[in-house]
Each structure stands twice: as C-alpha cells, then as structure tokens.
C-alpha cells in the first residue's frame, strides 16, 4: 500500500519538527522554607495530583528487619493522630481524596490526589499521616496477616518464584537480592517499635523529590509544601552502596507443577547516566521493546506461535543495572523459545541493527514519548522521577533530539560491546521439556 506509506512519511516529518511537547511547562518552585518541587499548573480541572518520593525504599530495611519498610508503608493508612484505622478511612472518604503508597527497591512514593475545594483539610490529614502515625498493635497484626497471606501466595506463583531466584543469584546478600516484602519469618517477627524505626529511616528531607500537577499556583504549592514537609527530619538511614551483579551463562530450572513454563533471561545492564544509554535504549526497542514490532516478538510469537507475550527491558536501578526479559511458553515449547532467544541475542551482538530498524525505532520512540504525559497524576509521577534521575528541567523538550542523535555506528558498536550471549542466564520455572539446568 504505497500511497499509505507516502502519507506516513510526510506526516512524520511534520510532527518531528512540530512543538508536540510545548504543552508541558514545568516550573521549579522553591518554598519559603527551602523545599524544591517541579510544578505543572493545570487549572482546567479543580484538583491537584501531588507526588512525593523518598529515595531509599525497601533497601533501607535494617539487616534483620526485612519487610519492615513495606509493612510500615501499608500501615500509613491504618490510623494516625487521634484517629484509629476506620475513623481515618472515614475522614479520607469524607474529603473524596486519595493517598496511595508504594514501597519499591529504590523509592517510597506517596501519590496524593485531592480536590481544590477542600485542599487544606486534605493536606492537614496527609500531614497527620506522615507525622503522627499510630502503628497500633491491632492494625499491625491485621496488616501483617495480609502481607503474610500475600507472601504465601507468592511462593506458589511461577513469576514470583522466578524473580526471587534470579534476584538471589544476581545480587546475593545485597538488599536487591531479596524481596522488599520480606519473608514469612522476618515479617512474622516485626514489632511496633520496628515500624517507628522504619518510619524514621525513610522519611527525611535530604532524599525527598516532589512533583505537582493541577489546579494550584506556585505560591500555594510553596506554602503547602512547607506545611506538609518542613518538620520532617533532615536525614534518615544511610542508603546502601552499589550491588555487585553476578550473572553467568546457563539455565536454572525450578520444578513447579504448571502447564506453561515462565522464564526470566538476563545479563548485566547499563546505568541510566551512562553516555551510551540512548544507544542501549534504541537497541532494546529493536530487540524486545514494548511494541509488536520487536525482533523477539516477531521471531518467538508471530513466526512460531511459541508464546503470547515476550519482552526485554533495561532495568537501571539506583544501585545496580541489569538487562532482562521474560517469556512464558508451554512446557513442551519453552526449549525452542530459549533457543530462539539465545540466537537473537547472538545476532544482535554479531550484526547489530539495520538502518531501517534504527529509523523505525526512532520514529516510534519519539512519537510515543508525548503519549505518556497522560493525566495529572501520571505527569506528577514523571516530574518526581526526572528529578530523582537528576535530569534537567528542560529534558522533556530535548529528549527526542537525544534519541534522534544516535547513529547506526553508535548502536552497533554498543551492541557488539554490550550484548553478552555467553553470559545470558535463563531462570525457568515449570516443567520444561528438553532443558537441562547448568550448575552455576
């Protein structure tokens, strides 16, 4: 369909030159008390999305208290100040606001959404949540039982089993080597005192990043932040050092009764601030990035019908980077899927990408970038994330230029240097036929 392609090319040229991103105007706001935030004013809908991120996350757990920060984050909505869990929930419902908490390996985030008409009351409740948690014993026991129930289910989930085994192998004793949710034993032993200590470890101003989007002016945001955050302690627990990544080639097989094996495949990765990061990003898009067009999707799904889904991901965390992917395939087919993936890894190392693939990936990545600025909450989250990665405030306007500046030679030199087929390790959970575990 030639006519179609001509139209495509013409439109593409126009948009790449066009001001697609001009809509996101970020202001840096510094509150009177000295707290910095990035703000996008969006007064058309009478609410605000506020994203607070504290660097460290579950990696700040004390050595013998694995799971304390995760459990603590689950208890923040279980009462504070003079309110027990249900009074607190009723107060929040009465404001039609929502506060949600997420404790990941690098970050504890609080995503808040509140109406303009009762912003002060909502922020007073969030202040109470942050500064006067109760950690009542009955709430602790109740939420702990939920966490333990989840941990028991994780033990029977092929994806969780694979992830756990891979992390233990790759990161050993570093916090990245174990689940931030803790273990049945470690969570079972946590005390109320541990919750207060976890709270002190996490919430501090020296690791805070703020994004806000919505119906709020810079002055209003500054005052809000001072009221909410100025009385946090200056510092918290020390953030651990980098993890040593240990991944060597071969296969691990974990027996599990399921008709379909799941596999995680991985090698060492690349840091977000590495000068080659954009080359890596484009290379991954071509190999296994999130569209139907990737080589892995084409070879494993479209041509051979070996899977419903396959993808690969650069995972540059604060303290270690890996390059990984995942696939699920019937026990009788997973061996062929593994073989095809290994061959694609090798092909990328040997041959790199073609000029056409590079052009298609650039067009996709630059065109898809604006699609993620999708709603106030999502943009607030991006603003906080950009600050954590130390990106400049004008990054959104320059990011597509950085993608477009990468040359074929750069991608292919990078692929030859970076792709390590001999070190690619498969962690397989299921009853795979025709795959032998290798010792590692």
């Amino acid at each position, binding site marked *: 369909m030639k006519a179609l392609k001509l139209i495509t090319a013409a439109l593409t040229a126009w948009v790449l030159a066009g001001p697609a991103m001009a809509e996101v105007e970020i202001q840096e706001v510094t509150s009177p008390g000295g707290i910095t935030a990035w703000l996008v004013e969006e007064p058309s809908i009478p609410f605000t999305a506020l994203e607070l991120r504290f660097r460290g996350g579950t990696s700040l757990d004390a050595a013998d208290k694995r799971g304390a920060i995760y459990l603590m984050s689950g208890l923040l909505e279980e009462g504070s100040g003079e309110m027990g869990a249900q009074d607190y929930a009723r107060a929040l419902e009465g404001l*039609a606001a929502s506060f949600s908490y997420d404790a990941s390996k690098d970050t504890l985030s609080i995503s808040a959404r509140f109406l303009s008409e009762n912003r002060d009351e909502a922020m007073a409740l969030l202040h109470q949540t942050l500064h006067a948690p109760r950690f009542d014993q009955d709430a602790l026991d109740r939420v702990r039982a939920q966490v333990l129930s989840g941990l028991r289910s994780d033990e029977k989930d092929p994806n969780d089993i694979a992830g756990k085994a891979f992390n233990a192998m790759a990161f050993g004793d570093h916090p990245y080597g174990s689940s931030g949710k803790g273990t049945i034993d470690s969570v079972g032993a946590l005390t109320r005192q541990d919750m207060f200590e976890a709270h002190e470890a996490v919430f501090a101003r020296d690791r805070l990043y703020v994004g806000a989007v919505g119906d709020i002016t810079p002055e209003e945001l500054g005052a809000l932040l001072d009221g909410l955050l100025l009385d946090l302690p200056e510092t918290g627990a020390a953030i651990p050092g980098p993890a040593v990544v240990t991944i060597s080639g071969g296969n691990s097989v974990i027996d599990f009764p399921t008709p379909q094996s799941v596999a995680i495949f991985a090698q060492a990765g690349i840091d977000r601030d590495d000068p080659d990061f954009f080359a890596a990003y484009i290379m991954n898009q071509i190999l296994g990035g999130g*569209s139907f067009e990737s080589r892995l999707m084409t070879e494993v799904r479209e041509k051979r019908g070996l899977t419903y889904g396959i993808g690969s991901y650069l995972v540059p965390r604060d303290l270690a980077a890996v390059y990984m992917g995942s696939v699920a395939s019937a026990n009788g087919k997973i061996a062929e899927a593994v073989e095809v993936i290994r061959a694609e890894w090798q092909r990328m190392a040997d041959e790199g990408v073609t000029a056409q693939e590079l052009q298609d990936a650039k067009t996709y990545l630059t065109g898809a970038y604006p699609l993620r600025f999708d709603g106030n909450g999502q943009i607030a989250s991006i603003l906080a994330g950009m600050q954590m990665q130390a990106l400049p405030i004008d990054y959104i306007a320059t990011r597509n230029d950085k993608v477009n500046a990468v040359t074929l030679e750069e991608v292919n030199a990078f692929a030859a240097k970076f792709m390590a087929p001999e070190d690619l390790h498969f962690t397989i959970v299921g009853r795979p036929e025709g795959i032998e575990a290798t010792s590692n």
Partner: protein
Amino acid sequence: MIHRFLTAGAVALMAGTAMAQSDGEMVTTFTLSNGMDVVVVEDHRAPVVQQMVWYRIGSADEPVGQSGVAHFLEHLLFKATDNMESGEFSATVAANGGQDNAFTSFDYTAYFQRVAADRLELMMQMESDRMVNIRLTEDDIATEREVILEERNQRTDSSPQALFREQMHAAQYLNHRYGVPIIGWRHEMETLDMEDALSFYETYYAPNNAILVVSGDVDPAEVKQLAETHYGGIPANPDLPDRLRTSEPPQTTARRLVMQDERIAQPYVQRSYLAPERDAGDQETAAALYLLSELLGGGTTSYLANALQFDQQVAVYTGVFYNGLSLDDTTFSFLVVPSEGVTLEEAEAALDATYARFLEDGVDAEQLERIKLQLRASEIYARDNVDGIANRYGRALTSGLTIEDVQAWPDVLQAVTPEQIIAVAKEVLHPGASVTGYLMKETPAEEITQ
C-alpha cells in the same frame, strides 16, 4: 468546568444529522448514514488522540462449538488485508509513534490506537480497511491458533484462581453463553479454523454493528468529516442478525463447588448470585445493587470489612463485586479470604451471619452519603482521563445502553434511597440463584503421584 461549543456554522454544515452535545463531559455524538454510531470526547490538554472501534459482538454471540472465535478473530485482524501486509497495521501505528491493541469480552470486541492527534486520518483509513478487507492465509490460522492457546495457558491454565473463576461462571449460568469463557474452552479453541473465523467476520463486522469512539485533541466537526470519508462509504450489512441470546430460566437451586489445587497457598471462599444488569431507560435496580456492593465491600469502612476483618478478625480480605455493564444478566459476588486458622466453612458462616445482620441493621445513612460524595468527586477526577470516558461509552453502547443512559447514570446513583437498597438486596440475593465455591489446597490424601 470545560465547556465545548460548536460554532453555529459548523453545525449548519452537518445538514441532516443531529449532533447532540453534553457539556459536562465534552462529549459529542452522531450517527453516520450507514448506521455507524460515533462518539467524540474532547480533551485539548495534550496533542494526542485515541481512536477506538467497538463492535457489538463478543464471545457470548459465538456459534455453539466455536468458543473463542470472537477473540481468535480479534487476533487475526492484525494480519493482511487487501491493502496491507500481515503485521503492517501495527507496524504503521508504531512507525507513527503510536500504540495499538485490541480486546474482546462477552459483549464486545474493540480495537484502539493512541497516537499524535494529527495522525487520526491514517488510523481511520487503516481501521476502516480491516473492517471489510481482511485476507487470511492458512499459515496465519495455524500460527495464531498457537498464540491464543499460549494466551490461554498464560492467563488461565497457569492460574488456579483463573480456573476457579471459569468454573464458578460455568456453574452460575445454566443456559446463557456467559457460562463459556471468553478465551474459549481449550478443546474447542484447538478446532477453530479459517471458515469459523471468516464466517464470524462476514456476519458481524459492519458499520451498522460498530461504534467509533474518538477521544483527545480533536474537533468533532473534523472527526465527522473524516468518519464520513473513511467509514461512511462502507455499506451497512442488511442481514446483520439480531443479538438473540438464550436467557436464564428461574434459578432455583443453590450450587456448591470445591476446587483443589496444589498451587493454592491461600484458600478462599467465593459466592456469586445471578443479578440484573443496567438496562436502557431502567438503571435504578442496577444503581441500587452498585451502592449495595459499595456499602458491603467498598474498602476499610465497609460493613463486611468492619465485621469480618476488624471485629471478628476471621478474614484477611473481603470484597464485593458488581458490574452492571452487561448486555444480559450479570453477577453480584462476595469474596472472603480467611485468616490463618479459620476454615472456609467458618468464613462462609461468618459471611452469611454478617450479611443477615446487615439486612436487619439497614443502611448507615452517613456511609451512604460518603459513598455518594465520592461518586460525585469521581466525575471530577474522571475528566483527567479522557480515554476512560471514551471506554465508558464504548462499553455501555455495546451493552445495550444509550448515550442518555450513560449521562443519566451519575444522577440515577445519587437518587437511590436506603429502602431501595435493602429491597433490591432481598429480591436479588436469594440462595436459589447462588453459587458458592471453595478454592483450596489439595489435601494430602488426594495428592497425585508424579
């Protein structure tokens, strides 16, 4: 409040068609001359558009013995047409920096793309093409059938919870196709062939069976012009069958299931009841059921959480689910995950006793008011997600509702009284219409030797 007004001139240009507009939701609707309905939801904050085409056809409309064909066909629509090569559709969307996908349910099949706003015409050109021009090969059929079988492996067969849901559903519906899984029963999926797929396609894929929903940075007058150009020329299918479906007989007998699976670490009990859905012009019963589900199971302050998680501490989680968006009878269901040391029998007994007490106590007026307040606020938050609003229309219009029903729904919810809620609970949740299921770990005596 965002108000969108067309200029008088623009309206006058559309001679012959009425363009209805709802100012509260930035929504414009009209119908093409071939019967294709169009809904436009405007949001001009970012230069992005989403096109969706919803077909009023889903797994519950499949011929007997061909379960899964609606979803199989959905996959096959990404293969070749008269004008595009296999895979070219998604490749073109990607080459324009867009994202595309599709989904199938009991009552609908929908295709969508998200892309920069100025690419809408290209998306319409391609989507209208595959409405009538697909060209399949036997190789497509063979490979893609393997893909959907792997999808079933991944979504269903690898998950005892999903297998249990499938069995609960099958037991709930005595005579209606909702008892058959959307993805299909494996033994029938394995037999799906070219003829099954094409027969389904030719019968149901037509503009008079489709709804175009465009959301984002668009002008309704322009969308109308583009839609006329790309979809308007496709003739309506005069032989489009009515959606005649078998209906449920009176359900008179409580059913009980026990499913044992060695992969279960956390047992639970589920109870579902056959329940009425939202009907055009008649949404009051469904609204009362929705509020009932929120009162009983909507989070920490709900009646069940209060009794079972806080007071008696027999459950680590309780949930109540009701989705009124359905063409035919839907379900109202309870889930209780017992605390450690509490049996499923004890959890079920506690659920029954608690629900009986709820009926005696009646509705807590303050709790109902908080729920209604949150529903009002959710209409403000919803405006931050224009694609969500688009989805709401697509699902409603394929489930037998009208634009007016969608727009009336918030007010219908606000008007529900405590008395209506208790009355509908007593009427709908009766034992004869129930299925109770236990999902549990295999007992050692029954373990299968490998």
